[in-house]
């Protein structure tokens, strides 16, 4: 049976949106590149709003410049403003890169940004200028995010860089994880580091070992990897010993420039993969097209099944067996699933957020026996349904209502009848949970009503472990708080 489709009357206004606007995602990506300043081409209000929003989640400095339109600029075009802004940013910050994203305003007036930028490169050399088109009247912050990653990779890897296979002597993987938390990015780095440092047991008597010397084997396979973007340091750094014009951290530009020499790319997001199949571009697909770099597209590795897939691909790509450490993490996780099953089984959840994230969380919930009765997103890529069909087992899918393009007000109207036990998503769902009188488990972005949003781990066996524990404990606390008797034994 197909999942139920809810019939609501046609609506016009969006009330309490479950999405943010496109340039926000782009600005976040630029914060994940070393020495980069984002610059929004439009009126200053957009930059200020987005800074404010990102800051309230990360609790870190977030600098976004603006080309600062006036009424005249809005009428006559923003070329002069953009050029002056670039020059000004270059002088103040001497950045390695300026990431230029358009706003609705410059998109509406139709500024030809590549033309405006013509010649500017030389003027601010060695600062690299990257431009991504991000009108908010198409798409959401997630589109801005992927768009910016693509634009940066494209700009840094021109076709002329065609490398011969001979240069690809080492295994080298590009990783495009999408919009994950700082902790997720750190965990990814840990995993990749562990995979590149594995010391495979060697047979010292093997002909190879005798021929090549033991040492070269004992060093492990030494796969290199580049994660783009990586804002885990810049948007969660320590106090400054010295003043920092641009906070430290981020994917180094030189590594992005070397992406065309990789032996594989890995890209998270099943919705993203579907849009690529339809002809949209992503960073991974670009590298595949331009440089024949094989692309592994996976869902975001949340939960055991998705993480298993991720590790399988890693084993293949690095020709290295999964390190013992992760096997143990997996073992503990399954053990916890068993122990906690009685608390979560057949519980009902409302899941919302950006589409790929919803798919990943729904997949995880289903595998622990929770029914994601409502899967909603402000995004409307057109692939949410299909992605959920692929990830959810049939018996669960039958009980799921899928709703792309949904806002919180309609979510509330829909959710009540589905009798959920809890909601899971970002801080914006607090009102929903309050009105439904059920707990909210905070994941994703933005989380501004709790501390530590950027430190929430979602991915890998460890992430699943943390999510599982949090959910079980939330449900237990609820039972305990509302139970009149026996509240000491749960």
């Amino acid at each position, binding site marked *: 049976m197909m999942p139920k489709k809810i019939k609501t009357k046609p609506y016009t206004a969006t009330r309490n949106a479950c999405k943010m606007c496109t340039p926000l995602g782009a600005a976040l990506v630029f914060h994940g590149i070393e020495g980069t300043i984002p610059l929004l081409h439009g009126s200053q209000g957009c930059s200020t709003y987005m800074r404010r929003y990102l800051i309230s989640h990360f609790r870190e400095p977030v600098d976004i410049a603006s080309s600062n339109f006036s009424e005249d600029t809005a009428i006559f075009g923003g070329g002069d403003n953009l050029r002056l802004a670039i020059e000004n940013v270059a002088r103040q910050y001497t950045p390695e890169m300026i990431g230029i994203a358009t706003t609705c305003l410059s998109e509406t007036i139709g500024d030809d940004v590549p033309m405006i930028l013509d010649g500017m490169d030389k003027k601010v050399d060695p600062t690299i200028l990257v431009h991504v088109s991000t009108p908010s*009247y198409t798409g959401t912050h997630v589109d801005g995010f992927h768009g910016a990653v693509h634009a940066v990779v494209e700009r840094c890897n021109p076709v002329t860089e065609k490398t011969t296979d001979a240069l690809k002597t080492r295994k080298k993987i590009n990783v495009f994880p999408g919009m994950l938390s700082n902790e997720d990015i750190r965990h990814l780095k840990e995993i990749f580091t562990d995979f590149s440092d594995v010391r495979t047991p060697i047979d010292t008597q093997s002909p190879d070992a005798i021929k090549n010397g033991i040492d070269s084997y004992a060093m492990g396979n030494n796969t290199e990897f580049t994660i783009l973007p990586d804002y885990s340091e810049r948007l969660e750094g320590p106090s400054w010993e010295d003043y920092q014009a641009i906070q430290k951290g981020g994917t180094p530009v030189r590594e992005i420039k070397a992406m065309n020499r990789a032996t594989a790319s890995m890209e998270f997001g099943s919705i993203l993969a579907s849009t690529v199949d339809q002809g949209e571009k992503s960073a991974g697909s670009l590298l595949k097209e331009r440089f024949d770099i094989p692309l592994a597209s996976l869902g975001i590795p949340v939960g055991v099944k998705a993480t298993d897939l991720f590790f399988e691909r890693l084993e293949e790509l690095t020709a290295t067996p999964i390190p013992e450490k992760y096997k143990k993490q997996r073992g503990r996780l399954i053990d916890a699933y068993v122990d906690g099953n009685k608390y979560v089984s057949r519980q009902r959840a409302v899941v919302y957020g950006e589409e790929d994230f919803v798919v990943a969380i729904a997949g995880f919930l289903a595998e622990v026996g929770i029914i994601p009765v409502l899967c909603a997103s402000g995004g409307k890529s057109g692939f949410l349904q299909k992605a959920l069909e692929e990830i959810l087992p049939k018996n669960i899918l039958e009980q799921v209502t899928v709703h792309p393009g949904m806002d919180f007000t309609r979510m509330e109207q829909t959710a009540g009848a589905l009798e959920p036990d809890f909601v899971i998503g970002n801080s914006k769902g607090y009102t929903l949970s309050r009105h439904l009188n059920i707990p909210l488990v905070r994941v994703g972005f933005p989380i501004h009503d709790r501390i530590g949003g950027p430190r929430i781990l979602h991915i890998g066996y460890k992430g699943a472990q943390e999510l599982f524990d949090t959910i079980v404990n939330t449900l237990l606390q609820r039972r305990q708080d509302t139970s009149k008797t026996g509240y000491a034994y749960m």
Partner: protein
Amino acid sequence: MSDTIKDTKTIKPGGVDTLDPEKIKKELLSRYPAKVARKRSNQIMVNKKDDTGKTPVMGANVRTVPGIITQRGCSYAGCKGVILGPTRDIVNITHGPIGCGFYSWLTRRNQTRTASDADDNYMPYCFSTDMQDEDIVFGGEKKLKAAVQEAYDIFKPKAISIFSTCPVGLIGDDVHAVASEMKEKLGINVFGFSCEGYKGVSQSAGHHIANNGIFKNVVGKDDSIKEADYKINLLGEYNIGGDGFEIDRILDDCGISVVSTYSGNSTYDQFANSHTADLNTVMCHRSINYVADMMEIKYGIPWIKINFIGGNSTAKSLRKIAEYFGEEALIQRVEAVIEAEMPEVERVRLAVKKRCEGKVAMIFVGGSRAHHYQDLFNEIGMRTISAGYEFAHRDDYEGRRVIPDIKIDADSRNIEELKIEKDDDKYRARKTDAEIAALKAKGFEFKDYKGMSIDMENDALLIDDISQYETEQLLKLYKPDLYCAGIKEKYAIQKSGIPMKQLHSYDSGGPYAGFKGAVNFYKEIDRLVNSKVWDYLEAPWQTNPELSAKYGWE
């Protein structure tokens, strides 16, 4: 690194007087391209007060240079977020793509309190037409009409307002035409604001657009006269962190009744009835002085500047209101309230002062708080050595006497100035000319504001529209004991090891207005500047380098 920075590297907090502010100004400007530096130099001034009370001319309310990371918002933010945001029973619809509406959804901490649960409160809702590609191409008026209709069908509100974002202005949607059409159709008040973000240079333009709209479309709609002895409006008080509640409490104790607050904890009906008050008291001069002027011309309500930030300032403001009404009963009641409230304020103030005396603060916020909060710091012995506004105009620095000299540039010209005339039916002189003259003779000041600069030390550094870059330079050069600004600057300041207090949203604290607010603030500042957290910033191996190099037994 320039010499100035070298000179100041070793500055200890409090040692700021050895710094030459002119040199610092140069340092701040040194990285800008020449043209930009010239522009900025008009907005960074070393304070000098002459005998006549003149202070330096500030290049305020001018457009931020592209590429400078400003803390300013847009006129939409000022209109929808600041002014109309705190009014709970008007449904606000943002006409535009999703971001503008989303980012202004419950992001300010203006509080509201309904009389009962049955009362309308739409503040938790964020309506947006969420414009899509086709709306940009073919126009969004149809969608907007449908959105207004929908909001009406769901809530049946008294009023609906529409806010234009940047793209709307460009594609030429006529929100005012839609508003009048829907007003006609629905029989409720519907009005639109042309507050596109590119209008004006900051949120200040939006305040103006919003206030004009309220004045035109709402004020004067309800003439019923409220039974009360002393009726005032409180203008420019937005009830951040419950400030307005504390002020209301005190005024209530004094027997003074507030007809309408603009716009903290406000309702549509209060605005509609506000022309019946007998005095307008202005807190934030920047965001609303023109409304006070317009109400005086049209309805005959005089206005005075007051300030409820600071224990003494609160007492002074109450006395001023009592003096205006001039009745002995009120004067005595106000004195009684002050006498009852001040001992606790004094007790905490003196205790905190011991620990804060001599420390220095910097304040960069808003259009009035950079000035008002200096009173609180003064009360605990702290000096404000550098300050500036984010979106104020020249008169907020230099006083109202410069208003005739202010040049109107292209950015100000596109903000509508209403032509206001006396309303023959509703105009009522609140005082006779003789009474006004008598008050003035006693030194009572009507419609005056002398600005911030005159209250600051000579050599204090005044910086208008300070950028993120300049903020960070300033911290490095001065190392103040405390820096007050907003959330956008907050984390860079704290990472530099300097305590930081948000004076836009109060860091989820407050109230800081009135007597209880003063006590809260003294304690908060004490906690911040004397906190032990900062001691942990340096790890042992940083303060004690030999630790890392040697072991104890070596």
